[in-house]
């Protein structure tokens, strides 16, 4: 175990549930480096997740952790944050958990601009149940529940989440761990609803079973060929590639917990 992990891993919960080569482990790896760098201490951070492979991530970390129901991570995180506005709250979720069954909570948490960092690991499928179509699955893609090619278009999460009111949006990829660190770090520093979409390859149920990649490395090579690191100010990559970087940041819109604190003052003075 690397020395950073040694400091933060909840050892009795090991091993990671993830399959060999799963991108989610790389996200955990990156997250640990970021919190170590930011010096986030014990009792300063609560972790919340939903259901699915990615939502197991915080269970392995030695912090207060709510491993909630499918889709409900954001709602529980909002309650946790509301009564602990001075603490850091991070949500680990997957594309199905966050944008599918939890979609309504996603847009409303973004609308509130509540100071929560969301790390959404997207593998474009439902991995834990064996590779079914997700709300992020590309149009025409073959999955276990779209064997004829996906009849539906995927969400444009960048437009959805920023349109709903999120004030930070970054896209990163498990193939680019340095940029991933940066995306998480800036998201955690940002006061407001920070959304980090992480392209996180699923080498087993997507890679091997659907796309016939023989090894995780082969799949990561393909992912790498599909992404491009954005230049500052860009939100779209050239040549139809998927752009990685900080796509949006807004420090103007009021953050919910700050507003709630003001209301407490107003209400106290009126009584």
């Amino acid at each position: 175990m690397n020395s950073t992990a040694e400091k933060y891993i909840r050892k009795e919960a090991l091993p990671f549930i993830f399959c060999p080569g799963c991108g989610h482990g790389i996200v955990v790896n990156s997250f640990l480096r970021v919190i170590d760098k930011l010096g986030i201490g014990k009792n300063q951070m609560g972790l919340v997740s939903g259901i699915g492979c990615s939502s197991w991530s915080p269970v392995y970390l030695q912090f207060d952790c709510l491993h909630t129901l499918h889709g409900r991570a954001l709602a529980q995180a909002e309650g946790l944050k509301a009564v602990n506005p001075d603490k850091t709250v991070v949500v680990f979720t997957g594309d199905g958990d966050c944008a599918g069954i939890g979609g309504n909570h996603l847009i409303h948490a973004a609308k509130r601009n509540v100071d929560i960092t969301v790390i959404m690991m997207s593998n474009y499928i439902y991995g834990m149940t064996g590779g079914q179509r997700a709300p992020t699955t590309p149009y025409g893609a073959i999955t276990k529940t779209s064997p004829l090619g996906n009849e539906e278009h995927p969400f444009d999460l960048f437009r959805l989440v920023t349109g709903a009111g999120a004030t930070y949006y970054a896209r990163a990829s498990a193939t680019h761990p340095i940029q991933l660190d940066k995306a998480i770090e800036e998201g955690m520093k940002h006061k407001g609803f920070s959304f980090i979409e992480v392209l996180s390859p699923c080498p087993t149920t997507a890679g091997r079973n659907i796309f016939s990649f023989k090894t995780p490395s082969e799949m990561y090579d393909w992912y790498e060929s599909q992404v491009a690191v954005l230049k500052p100010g860009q939100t779209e990559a050239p040549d139809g590639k998927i752009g990685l970087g900080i796509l949006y940041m807004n420090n103007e819109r009021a953050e919910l917990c700050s507003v709630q604190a003001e209301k407490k003052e107003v209400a106290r003075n009126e009584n």
Partner: protein
Amino acid sequence: MRIKKLSDSGVKLMQGNEACAAGALAADCRFMAGYPITPATEIPEYLSSRMFAAGGVFMQMEDELASINAVIGASWGGARAMTATSGPGFTLMQEALGYAAVTETPLVVINVMRGGPATGQPTCTSQDAVMQARYGGHGDYEIIALAPSSVQEAFDFTVRAFNLADKYRVPVFVLSDETVGHTREKLLIPESVEIFDDEYQGVCREYFKPDENGVPPRIRFFQGHDVLVDGQLHDQRGIRAGTDPAVCAQAIRRYCGKILDHIDDISSVEKFFPEDAETLVIAYGSVSRSALSAVRRARDEGMKVGMLKLNTVWPVPEKEIRAACAGAKRVIVPEMNVGEYLREIQRIAGCDKVQGFSSIGGVFPAPKAIYEKIAEVT
């Protein structure tokens, strides 16, 4: 228990829903998340400013799923937390209530019952969520439910609900109904209330390890415990154990046992004219007031009638019901449903002796109607 002095004690004129909200504030509830729904809406309205004034937070969520889950988050965050809802909203909350049961999360839900199923009768009174309160979620677990019959009880039972939730680390329901919720009458806010405030000393690493009462300690986030809360069945450290039959069976038995082994502590009933009752009326919630009026009239006319009022309906106050039914020749259970709790009474006292008196369609059973039923069978 700590004694908390109340600054707003004294006689008030208040509505049942408002009394629940006032009781929650008196009980140091500092987080409410809710979604507007008739006939419970006055509760979030009342708390929307007062919760902030008390230093807490009120959030209007996007739906009932979000509301109950936010309450779970706030509860682990250290606050006494609640939501209020009715019919369809309570139905939406069931998955999370099961989660609260297995994660042993203390919280309070005020369910101001209205007629169902589905949208049903939004503005009409009912008691048709009594069984749902107990069996609403999948899986075996026990909860606690109190049934206020008046504005005073709406206040008092809500205060008690928070104490029971913390003491037993369990979701507690206040099963109010549209009649109680919208009745406006006298409320005496007491000088003080008791607050259950047991704090765990030291660092806890076995978050689900029961004490001698079968209940784990009331621990919270950000206190150094690094709590791991998981909806999958888990061992005492919170580590998932969904495929371990022994651990899971033991956990399920304990979720049930910690409540069922303490029925005597949790139960609250009131007996009226127990000495010579040949006909016994068993009632709870708003119907019990109508029933008591009917029983008094029947006694005035010489009938040997008594009554058992259930202040708590879950867990079933079995001992009291059995004792009260023992001396009676017949038992009537008036309810605003087709006969839900009736089955519990029949299970205890036998089907021959126990009959229901059902009032559905949003009709509150008047004392006269219950009196006529008593007169018919006595």
